[in-house]
């Protein structure tokens, strides 16, 4: 941009030398003083971009380091294996680890198949129409609703109307609704990215559409679909507001999916909010953050391996 602004008046001068009517005879020559050499500008931009990107990473690192420094010293084998005592002041978080796995796992087990099947329908089994646009719009709207609203809905519908009570299953169903849009949209993108040539070849060899979907499309789209699932697991593990009203706060080992279970995130919320024990709260947070980091790394490693195997 800078370059053009400077060179235009110069060209105008050349035009005048050729005898053409001089356009912009009073072209502001003093603009030349603002000239920044392009290579300097380039360096400034690169430096600026780097600094902004780094500050984003720095915030993330700061949060992680902060939580780890405060929490890790209190994470002991006993902390991971014992039930809490005296409201969480003593003991550990083993029921919460179990509860988190139960609620988040069940939610993804419910939402995963529904989301992937919806994405398959939207991409392979129907043409673009008002209906597909409506489904997509609905999914996007669902993604924008605050989680406490989901919690309220889950409480009224799953816990009360359907009589599932404040329980793991109520929480999981609520979470499943919340993560469904993410799974649908990421799966849809992944399926669309599969080259059309693969579909032609599969049809050309005499396969049915379903064989083509299961043997070629889903295989190629698996890394992308996996990304959506991992995002959903992360979101499920860290959710608090929606679960407060649906899976509840009972700090005991649940014995069935119809029991209430307190997740790690909710345990952290209780410990810090009610000032029960900050060291235990930070230790819980550390476990939570480490779990999410580990899931992401594992998923990343798994997908890299999968891609390397076929590519």
């Amino acid at each position, binding site marked *: 941009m800078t370059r053009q602004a400077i060179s235009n008046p110069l060209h105008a001068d050349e035009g005048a030398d050729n005898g053409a009517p001089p356009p912009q005879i009073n072209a502001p020559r003093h603009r030349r003083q603002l000239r920044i050499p392009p290579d300097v500008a380039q360096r400034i931009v690169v430096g600026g971009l780097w600094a902004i990107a780094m500050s984003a990473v720095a915030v993330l690192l700061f949060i992680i380091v902060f939580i780890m420094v405060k929490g890790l010293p209190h994470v002991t084998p006993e902390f991971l294996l014992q039930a809490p005592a005296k409201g969480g002041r003593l003991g550990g978080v083993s029921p919460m680890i179990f509860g988190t796995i139960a609620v988040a796992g069940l939610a993804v087990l419910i939402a995963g198949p529904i989301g992937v099947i919806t994405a398959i329908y939207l991409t392979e089994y129907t*043409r673009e129409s008002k209906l597909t646009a409506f489904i997509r719009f609905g999914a996007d709207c669902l993604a924008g609703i605050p989680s406490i609203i989901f919690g309220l809905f889950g409480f009224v519908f799953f816990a009360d109307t359907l009589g599932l009570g404040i329980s793991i299953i109520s929480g999981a169903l609520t979470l499943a609704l919340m993560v469904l849009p993410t799974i649908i949209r990421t799966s849809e993108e992944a399926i669309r990215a599969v*080259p059309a*040539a*693969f*579909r*032609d*070849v*599969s*049809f*050309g*060899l*005499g*396969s*049915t559409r379903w*064989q083509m979907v299961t*043997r*070629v499309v889903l*295989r*190629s789209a698996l890394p992308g679909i996996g990304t959506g699932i991992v995002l959903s697991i992360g979101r499920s593990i860290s959710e608090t507001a929606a679960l407060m009203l649906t899976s509840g706060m009972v700090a005991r080992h649940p014995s069935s999916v119809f029991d209430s279970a307190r997740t790690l995130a909710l345990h952290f919320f209780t410990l810090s909010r009610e000032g029960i024990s900050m060291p235990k709260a930070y230790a819980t947070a550390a476990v939570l953050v480490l779990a999410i980091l580990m899931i992401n790394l594992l998923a990343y490693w798994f997908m890299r391996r999968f891609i390397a*195997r*076929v*590519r």
Partner: protein
Amino acid sequence: MTAQHKIHSKDLNLWYGDFHALKDVSIAVRDRMITAIIGPSGCGKSTLLRCFNRMNDLNAAVRVQGGLFLDGQDCYGARLPLTQLRKRVGMVFQRPNPFPLSIFDNVAYGPRVHGVTGKDRLAEIVEQSLASTALWDVLKDRLWEPALDLSAEQQQRLCISRLVAVEPEVLLMDEPCSALDPIATEHIEELMRTLAEKYTIIIVTHNMQQAARISKETGFMLLGELVEFGQTEQVFTNPRDKRTEDYVTGRYG
């Protein structure tokens, strides 16, 4: 049409929406030899090829009218289901396009889709299919490596093996060499000559020398019409139609 005609069409018309892409095409392709279809870009030669295994059906905007017959049997009739038609009439595409699977799984794809499950039977089919394209000796120790690691020529050979594995009767080839270098092209042409002993091959090509080199019969298409169809030598040296003459002598356009 006589018995030696493998595939024939009668007054075949095709529209892409409002665009009339094939106009009253009647062609009879003979069994176990190579038939070439030539013509400038956009003349409808690929569209015609994709009619023979009804690949055009995948495009919702396409409308087809007229008759199409495989061994005298109506390709649009109930007695020839789509999956069976495509098993018998297979296609090789312009770009080599193996699946992102192992070499073995690529070749075994078709048989598996058609219900072959036995490990020994699959291994046998894979060996025979790779042997038919002269890949077996080169690749027999690399069957579990990704197919995408192969060279372009090997990938195209693999795609032909993949097709041969479903035991088709007709091979449709849509400019199968246009993504390959001249040496690889020569190799694939050699392979096509060998395959023509067992299969009916229809090749679409914009390379006239290639058509002249490998085909027994040639059809010339222009603006959706089959202008001329006959012995390759006659089409190239003594064309009946002025438009054919202009094209094969390079005066087209």
